[in-house]
């Protein structure tokens, strides 16, 4: 399981690395994509817990999860492989699903 607050930052940042620290791009490159690959190889689900941070900007989440599709994964595969936990802001799960579905639009 990935906990963004524990494994990455309690203060997720902007979309891209060039925009500032703790970006969605950085999170995807260093943590999310490698763990996703491991999950595929193990034929397991990858759980990502969004709780415990100060909050997310839209583009952090879009770049992290939508970007996972743009680097060569199918939206359906990503949706079925990922399990998102977000008890503090449950509506983020719906948002992330939308980012995954519309990643290539």
């Amino acid at each position, binding site marked *: 399981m990935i906990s963004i607050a524990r494994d990455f930052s309690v*203060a*997720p*940042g*902007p*979309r*891209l690395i060039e*925009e*500032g*620290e703790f970006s969605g791009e950085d999170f995807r490159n260093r943590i999310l994509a490698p763990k996703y690959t491991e999950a595929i190889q193990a034929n397991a689900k990858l759980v990502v817990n969004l709780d415990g941070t*100060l*909050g*997310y*900007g*839209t*583009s*952090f989440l*879009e*770049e992290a999860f*939508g*970007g996972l599709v743009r680097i060569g994964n199918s939206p359906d595969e990503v949706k079925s492989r990922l399990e998102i936990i977000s008890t*503090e*802001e449950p*509506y983020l799960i719906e*948002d992330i699903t939308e980012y995954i579905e519309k990643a290539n639009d």
Partner: protein
Amino acid sequence: MIKIELIAGYIIAFLLGLPFGFFVYSIAVNDLGFQVAKEITYQIDPWNVISLLISVILAVIVLRKLNKSDENDKAERELIINYFNAFNSEFTDKLGEVSKDGTALSYTANILKRYGVRLETLLKLAIEQGFLREESENGENLLRKVRNIRTLLTDTPAKGSLVDDGVKVIKGKLFFSEKQKDKIAYAVYDINCSIFLLVVEINRSLRK
């Protein structure tokens, strides 16, 4: 106000006491009849009087209970409306603050999280207390608009995107185009209107 109520109470007590006193006197002297003219005599049936008294007392008790229940409902309704109005005022101020150039993205994200969670909690409370329907359209619209303003404040273009007239992030700080500032301002007015409609719905609701 208290004096008027006191005087009214005394008048009502006098008006009720007068016939009751006459009735008690009639029983005491064992003469429940009275004559209004030479040929016309009225006889008072004591059981009718007792029955009437009991009815009046019961009516007063029931009215007082209903009145109390109405007062409680009104007070609770006002309380929850005040919560929404306070949320509206504070959230509007905060949105004004975070839509200024140079605000830290993490601060903006935190504000949006805190107020988003607060709004969800308030809506849940209003539904649990019977002031809003679970499928309230005004509630759903408001939540959608608050989520939309998160996008307006924090969504930057993806790499390779041709759209470049909204939000920029430089070293973790947000910068907005004039066009984007207008969009944010309109979205804030929209949220204010939505909260007003929600308050109207609460005010008009019939609690189950």
